[in-house]
């Protein structure tokens, strides 16, 4: 179990840095089509901010907001958004992930419907990637503790 860090510098830096990390992740996510980035990269930056919180404030404190079950739920929701947009295009008479068909549902013209469809898919990908990264982090850092090899301090 990662314990609470008693270092003031690390805690203050994490508290100051966290809003910028989330804001930058959202920027990378939204500007995926005209700058480097996209859903996967935005999700990885979100998960990195989560790892920073976990390292500086301890696993117990972080698990009040994000337990392993919540992470698994979020990964399912992300995959559901991705697949749901694809199947919605299929229902409306196009191919799978053919965003132009969404213009009838959203009430905008075809070009803007394509842009919005790509944005929706990228939000789904970001949610899934963030949740899977958090699940991996939990699995790694609790497996070490259960074996009793490393965490002999308690």
């Amino acid at each position, binding site marked *: 179990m990662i314990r609470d860090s008693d270092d003031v510098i690390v805690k203050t830096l994490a508290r100051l840095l966290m809003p910028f*990390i989330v804001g930058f992740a959202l920027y990378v996510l939204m500007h995926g089509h005209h700058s*480097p980035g996209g859903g996967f990269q935005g999700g990885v930056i979100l998960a990195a901010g989560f790892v920073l919180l976990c390292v500086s404030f301890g696993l117990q404190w972080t698990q009040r907001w994000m337990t392993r079950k919540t992470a698994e739920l979020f990964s399912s929701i992300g995959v559901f958004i991705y697949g749901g947009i694809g199947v919605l295009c299929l229902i409306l008479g196009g191919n799978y992930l053919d965003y132009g068909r969404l213009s009838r549902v959203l009430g905008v013209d075809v070009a803007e419907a394509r842009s919005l469809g790509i944005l929706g898919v990228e939000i789904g990908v970001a949610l899934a990637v963030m949740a899977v990264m958090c699940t991996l982090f939990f699995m790694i850092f609790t497996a070490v503790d259960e074996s009793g090899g490393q965490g002999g301090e308690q």
Partner: protein
Amino acid sequence: MTTFFLFIGIAMCVLVLLCLYRATMGPNVLNRTAGISAIGTKTLIILLIMGIVYDRIDMFVDISMVYALLNFIGCLVLAKYLERSREVSC
């Protein structure tokens, strides 16, 4: 001006090799950690210089910001691991 930045970039690459020597051959874990951290900061500068040389600085600033962020978090996690696992023998 591009030639100037190009030569600065080449000098930075040579400095990265020196830091890599310290990171692989370091006597203990703390030297390796410091070497890896120095390589991270130098890579950030090299990315920005590449952005100036290729005239796409707006793209490379994003990449270097993410690199700095991940470098910081990686160093923090490594320090946390060393704090737990008493491997540091200075």
